[in-house]
């Protein structure tokens, strides 16, 4: 790899942090859609908590990305005034809300990935990132546990729930590999002790999920024929455009207004 220039350095560092922030932002948005729709009111509370944790992470990460970038963009400018192609989240988190099994499958994979990542980011050379990770690690450990508890109950519950959980895992399967795929920014960040190489946590994430599935009496889903890629380069599924249209429209309808 050639030596990056200062501009490259800024771009790559910003891009790495934005990827983490966009993952959290977009997933918190999807979880926000669950409020008033959960299977039991206690679960409205739980999904709300997970969503709020992720939104908190997103705000810290986007703010930090804006500072690294140095072009005066704050968390709202980054969240509300970028288009699809500038979002760097993985495609898993932008998928439309499915049933409760879909959500628990997604949360199990995503929280397992986030936990493996944040446990390591605690030692990041980027002190702000290390600080965010230190707080987030406790949060995502709880998210992972929550999802695991549910996957086990749905897998080992009724024949219907077993069926639904298995189907959900199958639907989510095409989006799993992207979580632990390396991209230019993460390779750059990992080399400098700022970030973690996603591929380096792949085994850990898969082992944990496999252990949950075993307990849930579920088979590992069949490998997906197609799998999502390049979310980190701004290549998304069509769902993200609609998500952003909804999220951003009030903000964009009133340019420069304070809220």
């Amino acid at each position, binding site marked *: 790899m050639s030596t990056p220039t200062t501009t490259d350095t800024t771009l790559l560092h910003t891009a790495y942090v934005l990827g983490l922030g966009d993952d959290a932002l977009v997933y918190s948005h999807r979880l926000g859609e669950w409020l*008033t729709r959960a299977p039991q009111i206690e679960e*409205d509370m739980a999904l709300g908590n997970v969503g709020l944790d992720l939104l908190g992470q997103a*705000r810290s990460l986007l703010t930090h990305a804006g500072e690294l970038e140095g072009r005066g963009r704050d968390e709202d400018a980054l969240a509300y005034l970028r288009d699809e192609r500038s979002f760097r989240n993985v495609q898993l988190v932008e998928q439309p809300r499915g049933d409760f099994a879909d959500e628990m499958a997604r949360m199990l994979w995503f929280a397992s990935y986030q936990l493996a990542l944040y446990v390591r980011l605690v030692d990041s050379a980027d002190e702000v990132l290390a600080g965010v990770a230190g707080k987030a690690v406790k949060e995502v450990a709880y998210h992972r546990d929550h999802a695991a508890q549910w996957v086990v109950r749905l897998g*080992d519950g009724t024949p*219907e729930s077993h069926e639904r959980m298995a189907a959900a895992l199958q639907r989510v399967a095409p989006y799993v590999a992207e979580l632990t795929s390396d991209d230019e920014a993460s390779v750059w960040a990992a080399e400098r002790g700022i970030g973690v190489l996603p591929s380096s946590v792949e085994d850990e994430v898969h082992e944990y999920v496999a252990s949950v599935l075993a307990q849930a009496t579920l088979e590992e889903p069949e490998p997906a024929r197609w799998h999502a890629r390049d979310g980190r380069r701004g290549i998304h599924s069509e769902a993200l455009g609609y998500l952003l249209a909804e999220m951003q429209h009030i903000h964009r309808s009133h340019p420069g207004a304070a809220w």
Partner: protein
Amino acid sequence: MYGNDFGEPLNAAETEDYTSAVQEYFDGLIADDQRIEPRDAMPEGYRSTLIRQIAQHAHSEIIGMQPEGNWITRAPSLRRKAILMAKVQDEAGHGLYLYSAAETLGVDRAELLDKLHNGRQKYSSIFNYPTLTWADVGAIGWLVDGAAIMNQVPLCRCSYGPYARAMIRVCKEESFHQRQGFEILWTLARGTDEQRAMAQDAADRWWWPALMMFGPPDSGEAATQGHTAQNMAWGIKRFSNDDLRQKFVDMTVPQADKLGLTLPDPDLRWNEERGHYDIGPIDWDEFWRVLKGDGPCNSQRVEHRRAAHEDGAWVREAAAAYAAKHAAGEVRGAVA
């Protein structure tokens, strides 16, 4: 209705076990301003009034999640989005505290939810109005939560212990709800022309429904009808609907001035003699109409709630089945 009760009046009918000695003990506790606790014998009317009122209150919290939840995905800043999510989540929590209080009276939450879903129990009619703009989120916090707090604070001294304790928790948590609503409108009122217009429009639409939240007139001649008198004697209600409404108006009018918003009542003026604000006539026809189902969102709210419940049935069944399978092997943590 958010701490109010509009069902048919109930008589304190007694069951066979309800002897005069027990009645005397109950009356003594009420007279001493002591709290009634779940296992105490109580008049059937007291129990059923409380169940209905607490259930309606809980339903209001749960249905009340919807008009605001409607804006979570569109909140115009991340700070607002976080606040709104926390607030809607709080409402779920308040509903749960209240169902928990109702269950101490010997009903099951599932039973109460069924009654909500099939329309046999009501919730506050305010939530049958739509939230059309972002400013509505502010108006709900400022006016609707403001009115709710006015109703709820006296309930912290309600004679039924579990209800009073739930209300203490709710009121403590609710204090941020009203403030964040005011802050939203404060920001809008100082923003662009469009934002100011949005804030004024929201105040115009929510003012009268907020006043209706206190319920129909029940002082003066009206006090002898309905069940205000009985509920006051039982220590379930501490102030009349009209007194609470007046307190709310007196508190809110100066706040509207501060915001620079007008309230949609040409008759609204300070009455030096009474030391209170006078208001124009409330459209009680609208109130009864919306209460009886003819409001813009009645069927939408209940349908949304019912759909969530029905969509979740297989999840609840799965968890129950899992629990049944694994109950024998459940590992209990040592008490520490």
